[in-house]
């Protein structure tokens, strides 16, 4: 029969609780201040915006880690036996219902270290697409194109595929589709679309980030697809809209027409069928 060894619990008085709360509060305020300063700096850093923002979650987890260490070691004065007991209690807590919270925290740590996405990236997590505005202890916050703030639990990283459109770079690829009538001059249309992309105020072109325009023939219409990089992922939709608008203005000058509505519907139906 195992011998029961009594473990002496730390004396928790009101001051211990106040000190612990104070440490956590200081850590929280410190994180808020650092986050604010780094966000301001990153906005002035231009192309290095995302690089600066990458530091935020790392600092956040480090500061919370230090705060918890101070609370356990210096305020509660937990010894090795007490830490084992604390671990046991934590394990029981996880088993009884804190499982998701714990998975979120571990997910957050792994996201911070492994960087499948970073603050500032455009990502798709589950059904949501948007710019990562914060990677917290429990959840990753996304700002969707409609300006909704979505909190996606960090554990989703373990269970769902996460797509990052830019993977830490300030630029990202934007795909723009335009559909034209089969009778229209497609060679001219391609030239116009190419120039529309290349002259956009939002475009970014380099040897590593080239742009291209592709054409695909469908039974009753043609699809022109431009693939190009926007210089700052925040302008993704402005870029798409600007290129589309300028291209159609130019198309109309050259008699290039959109497919007739019933033709588009027929194409969709035949595809579905």
């Amino acid at each position: 029969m195992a011998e029961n060894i009594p473990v002496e619990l730390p004396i928790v008085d009101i001051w211990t609780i106040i000190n612990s709360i104070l440490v956590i509060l200081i850590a929280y305020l410190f994180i808020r201040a650092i986050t604010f300063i780094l966000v301001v700096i990153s906005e002035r850093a231009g192309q290095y915006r995302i690089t600066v923002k990458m530091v935020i979650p790392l600092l956040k987890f480090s500061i919370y880690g230090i705060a918890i260490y101070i609370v356990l070691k210096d305020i509660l004065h937990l010894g090795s036996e007490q830490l084992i007991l604390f671990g046991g209690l934590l394990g029981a807590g996880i088993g009884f219902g804190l499982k998701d919270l714990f998975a979120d925290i571990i997910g957050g740590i792994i996201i911070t270290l492994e960087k499948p996405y970073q603050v500032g990236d455009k990502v798709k997590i589950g059904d949501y697409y948007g710019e990562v505005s914060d990677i917290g202890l429990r959840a990753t916050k996304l700002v969707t194109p409609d300006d909704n703030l979505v909190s996606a639990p960090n554990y989703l990283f373990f269970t769902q595929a996460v797509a990052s459109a830019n993977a830490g770079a300030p630029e990202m690829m934007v795909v723009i589709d335009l559909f034209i009538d089969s009778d229209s001059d497609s060679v001219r249309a391609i030239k116009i679309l190419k120039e529309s992309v290349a002259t956009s105020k939002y475009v970014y072109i380099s040897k590593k980030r080239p742009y291209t325009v592709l054409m695909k023939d469908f039974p009753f219409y043609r699809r022109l697809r431009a693939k190009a990089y926007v210089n700052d992922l925040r302008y993704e939709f402005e870029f798409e809209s600007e290129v589309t608008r300028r291209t159609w203005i130019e198309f109309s000058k050259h008699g290039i027409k959109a497919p007739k509505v019933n033709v588009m519907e027929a194409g969709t139906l035949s595809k579905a069928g």
Partner: protein
Amino acid sequence: MNSDKKEPVKEMIGFLDEIAKIQTAIADFECGQNLNIAIISEPFAGKTTILDVIEKMNSEKVTRLSFSSIVKSKEDIKIPENSKRVVIIDDCNFLYERKIGGFENLEYFLRSVVTSSNIFITTWNLYSWNYLDEVFNIGDIFPVQIKLPKFTKDQVKESILSKYEANEIKFEEDVEFEKEKVFEPRKFTISIKPLEKNINIPYYKLNYSLLKVRLLKKEERVGIEELIFEKIQHISNGNPGVAKIIWNKSLEYPIIKPSKINDVSFNIDLDYKESFVLFLILSMKSINSDELSEILGPDFQVDKIIFRLSNQGLIAVDDVSCNIKPEALKSIADFLKKLRLVW
């Protein structure tokens, strides 16, 4: 002041290697190798000066074309049939407009270059070149690319003083300069949108040129003349044209004092559209408002934007065109790089 006798030598200051490279390419051309040349630099850095020297050195075999505004017709870029074998073309950045259908003249010109038996020596604005090289790979057509170097302090000094007689200029130390601080107090403004408030955070900016000057002074006991050119080189970022403009603004003939050389820093506050217009002006160096309106279309209130750019001291507007202010060149380029409008 000196007469024009010294001109060719004076103009070559700081560009000896570049001129030698061009002369070698011309010599190779005589031997049957056709390597077209692109001389690339930011505005005011001396592209036209180099062309002048090359034209003088090869006056027998050169035909020269120059553009001063955006080329509207192919007739303007037709190479004359009786042209000599070396064709020099200045400011080729005027061959395109950044708009749909704005590259026809450039494409026509590039076709002329590749089908011609002449050698072409061309100059390009750095920012236009970088854009066109990424979009059209124009670097393939101009295999010899000469990017003009930044001038050192000694080159700035030599090029500025070359037009004066020895001891014509008096370099005077002054009290105001001694009072200048290595760390200058500044304010950094943060706007807190939810509260609609601005907070000014004081900080100190390192006056790099002054620090360097003070260190040089202590260690080497360098004369005030060296200190003045150190400061001019730093402010102009080694751009010889900008250095000369700073010199002319600071000189109270025949006296120059360190305190008269102002290190102007620009706090550029522009939205994205205004920044794009600034980029267009930078990439052309000079462009008029009608040309801007034609490129930008009805979405842009060009006159209002020009007014804003002018108000912030970034451009100078005259009756004919909008021009980049030389002293703002470095600040503008840094600002546009941050926005990734300059590649």
